[in-house]
C-alpha cells in the first residue's frame, strides 16, 4: 500500500511497488491524459509534477511516491497552467497533440519557477520533450505569450 496526494486528493493504491507511475495512472486509475511515448524518459510525453518538479512518470516507481504530491494534466490548475493552456490555443500550438500533455506540464513547471524565461531557459526546460510534428517554434512563442498573460 502506498499513499500519496494525486491532483489534490489523498490516494492510496495497492499495486506492485515497481510499477511505473505512468501505468498506475493510465491503466489502474484510468487517467489517460498522461501519455506513453517511449518508456525510457527520452520523449517527455509522460511528464507529471512530483512535489512540483517536472518528472517522467515512466521512470518513477509507485513505491517511491509515499507522501508525494503528484499532479497530472487532469489536475494542473495553477495560474501558470491556465496561462499556458490559453497561450497554447491562442498560438495554435498542437498538431497531432499526443505529446502536448507532457509539453504543457514541462512548460508549466518552467513558468512556475521562471516567470519570464529567456529562449535559453526555454531550450533547457523543454529539450527533453519531443514533438514529432515539430510544433517547437509555436511552443516557444506560446511560452513567451503565457508569460505575458501571467503578468497581466
Amino acid at each position, binding site marked *: 500500500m502506498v499513499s500519496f496526494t494525486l491532483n489534490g486528493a489523498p490516494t492510496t493504491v495497492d499495486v506492485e511497488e515497481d510499477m511505473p507511475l505512468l*501505468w498506475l495512472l493510465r491503466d489502474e486509475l484510468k487517467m489517460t491524459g498522461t501519455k506513453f511515448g517511449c518508456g525510457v524518459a*527520452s520523449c517527455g510525453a509522460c511528464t507529471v509534477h512530483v512535489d512540483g518538479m517536472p518528472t517522467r512518470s515512466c521512470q518513477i516507481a509507485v513505491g517511491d511516491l509515499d507522501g508525494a504530491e503528484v499532479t497530472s494534466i487532469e489536475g494542473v490548475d495553477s495560474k501558470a497552467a491556465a496561462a499556458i493552456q490559453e497561450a497554447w490555443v491562442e498560438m495554435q500550438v498542437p*498538431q497531432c497533440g499526443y505529446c502536448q500533455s507532457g509539453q504543457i506540464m514541462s512548460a508549466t513547471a518552467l513558468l512556475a519557477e521562471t516567470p519570464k524565461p529567456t529562449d535559453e531557459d526555454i531550450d533547457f526546460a523543454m529539450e527533453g520533450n519531443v514533438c*514529432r510534428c*515539430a*510544433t517547437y517554434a509555436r511552443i516557444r512563442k506560446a511560452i513567451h505569450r503565457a508569460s505575458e498573460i501571467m503578468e497581466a
Partner: protein
Amino acid sequence: MLHYLEQALSAPAPSRRTFLKMSAGTIGGLLIGASLPRSADAMGEGSFTQPFVHITPDGTVTVLVKHLDKGQGAATGLATLVAEELDADPAQVAVEFAPSNPQVYANSLFGVQGTGGSTAMANSFTQYREAGASARAMLVAAAAELWNVAPEAISVSNGRIRHGDDSLSFGDLAEAAGRQAVPESVSLKSAADWTLIGKDMARVELPLKTQGSVGMFGMDAKPEGVLIAVTARPPKFGATVASVDADAALAMPGVSAVLTIPQGVAVVADNTWRAMMARDALEIAWDMSTAETRSTDALAEEYGAMLETEGMPAMTKGDAAGKLAGAAQVVEARYHFPYLAHAPMEPLNMTVLFDGETATFWGGSQIQTLDHNVAAAVLGIPFENVAINTLWGGGSFGRRATADAHLVAETAMIGAAWLAETGSAAPIKLVYSREDDIKGGYYRPLTLHKVRAGVDAEGKVSGWEHRIVGQGIMIGTPFESFTVRDGVDHSTVEGAADTTYSLPDMAMDVHHPNVGVPVLWWRSVGHTHTAYVMETMMDQLAEAAGQDPVAFRLAHLDGDPRLAGVLRLAAEKAGWDSPAPDGVHRGVAVHKSFNSYVAEVAEVRMREDGTVKVEKVTCAVDCGVPVNPDNIRAQIEGGLAYGLSGVLREEVTLTDGEVDQFNYPDYMPLRITDMPLVEVHIVPSTEAPTGVGEPGTPPIGPAVANAIAKATGQRITELPFAKHGLA
C-alpha cells in the same frame, strides 16, 4: 448498395463515437469546449441527417469527416467548407469522424476511404462545399414551406434563417429540413463571397488537446473491461515462431493469456506494464529459415554494384548520353539515403471487440476500407459485420497507412485467438512499445542514386543520366496498379522522373532489389530522396556554370511558372540578393510535390565543434486557394522540421538482419534546440486547393545541404548529416 447507406446514416452507439462540441473561439471560431458523447436519442426524431452533415434540434451542425485527422487539420478544414456554404455560425459546428463506408466516404482520388498523399482538402473541396450548400437549400426549402414564401425571398447568415421579421435557427428547422428532397444540384458561392475560406480558422480540437486529449486517441480508448496485448515479434524480418515456453509469463500477475499468432506471440494482461513484463519472460525459439539476414552495409554494397548496371527504364527524353559527351562540364555524384522510421509520438495501437459474429475496432485508421476488408477477411465474417471507429491519430507521417493493414490484421488475429482460447468476448487493445515501433519495419526505403549531368558553354544543363536503386514501396501490394508501370514504382522516381525543370535530354532507370525489410511511404514518399538529389545537383551545376543558384534554377523553369513563382518569392523574402549576416550561409531548394509548390531558403551557421545550426528558414508555398492560412503555415513549419529531423540524425541500420536502433535515444528526432525560426509566405491563388501535409518536407534537406556546401565546400551525399560530424 443500400446497406452501406443505411450504415452510414445509422448512429453507432455513443461509446463508439468521438463527438466534439464547440464553444467560443479565439482566432476564427470552430472551437471545441468539451467532448460530449452523443446521447442515443439525440440523433433520432427532429434531426437532419445527411451523409456529411447532421443538424440536431439544439442547432449543432455536425460535419462527418471522412478523413483521419492525425495532426494535419483535416477535420477543421472540411468543417470550414461546410460552414462556409451553409452560412453557419462557426461556433455551432462540430466534427465527428465518419464511419467506415467506401460507398459514401471514399477519397475520390483513391476510390476507397482513406487519407494520404496530402489529398484530404484536394478531394473534398467541392464535395464538402456541396454538402453544405445542399443542407442550406433544404433548410431554406423548409422555411419557405413554413412561411409560405418563395425560397428566393429567404436569407441565411451566421446560423439564422430570415424572411422579413421572421427568423429561425437551424435547430428549429432541422426536422422539417430533413423531410425536404435532396437537391439534384446546388450552386456554390464565388470566391469573392467567402467569409470563412481563406481566413485563419482555429483548429476545432485544440482546447481538448491542451487538457489531456481525453478520449481522443486510440491509445486512450478504454471500452469497459479492456485488456492489453503486446506481441513478441521476430528479431529478424520474415522469421517465424518455432516454439514458445510461456509458463513463466502465464504465472505473472495480471496475465490472462499467451496467444501464438502468425505475427509472433501475444501476451494479454490487465495492464500495459504487466503485459510488457510478461512478454520479457517469454522463452521463444524463432525459425530463422525464412528471415532477411543481410546487414545494411551489405545491402549498400549490393545496391552500389547495381548502380553500375542498367536498370529498368523509368523515363527517357532527348539524347542524354550524346549531350553529356559534348558538355562543357560534367558533375557526377552518388547518394545514399538510409532506412527511416516514422516514429509518430503515439505508438501504434488498435482495439478490437470480437464476439465470433461481429467485430468493432477503435483506433487511428488511415485507410479505413482496407482495414475493414482485411478485418473481415481475417475474422471470416461479412464486411457489414465489422465496424471501424476512427479516432484522432497521434501522428502518422505515413505509418498508419499500410497496404497490408498489418496492425488491424494482427489485432484481429489476437481477438480471434482470445475468443478461441477463452470462449468469451473481451475488448483487447494491441499496443506497440517504442521499441516495437523503431524495430518494426515499414521504413522509408534505403535508396541509392547515381547522377551524371552536364552544363554547356551557355550555362544550361546539357544531358542528365540518373539511376536509382531502392525497394518499390507499392510493388506486391493492392496499390501496385496505381503506381507501378512496366516494373517501375513511380513512388521511387517521383520528383525526379517528372521534374519540371527544362531538362530536354534526360534518361533515368531503376533497380528494385528484393529485400525482406518492409518499406513504406514516409512523409512525402519518394520526394524525401529525389528532391535532395535534384536540388543538390542543380546547385552543383549552377556552381559549375558560375551562376547564382536562384538565377540558374529560374533559367530552367520557363515551363513551370508556379514553381518559379515560389522560388522568386522565397528568395525575395529571404533577402537572397543581399549579403547574409556574418557567419551565416544560405542555401536554397525548390520542389513540387503533391501538386503544391514550395521553395525554402535555409540560413545556417557552423558551430565551433563542426556541427550545423539551421537558424532560419524562409518558405514560399503555392497550394492553390489557401483555405486556412494559419494551418498551412503550421504544416509547412512541421513538414520542413520533419524533413530536417530526417537529414540531421535519423537512420535505421541492420546488422545480420537485426535492427540496431531501439528507441529515441538512438533514433534521435528533432528537438526544440534544433528548431529554426520559420517564416512562411503563401502565394495568393484561385487555383483548386492542393495538399500541405507533405510538400514542406522535400526542400529542407537540400536547402540545408546547399548552405553547408557554401559554408564548408563539403557536398553531403551520404545521409544523415550526423555521419559527417555535422549533427
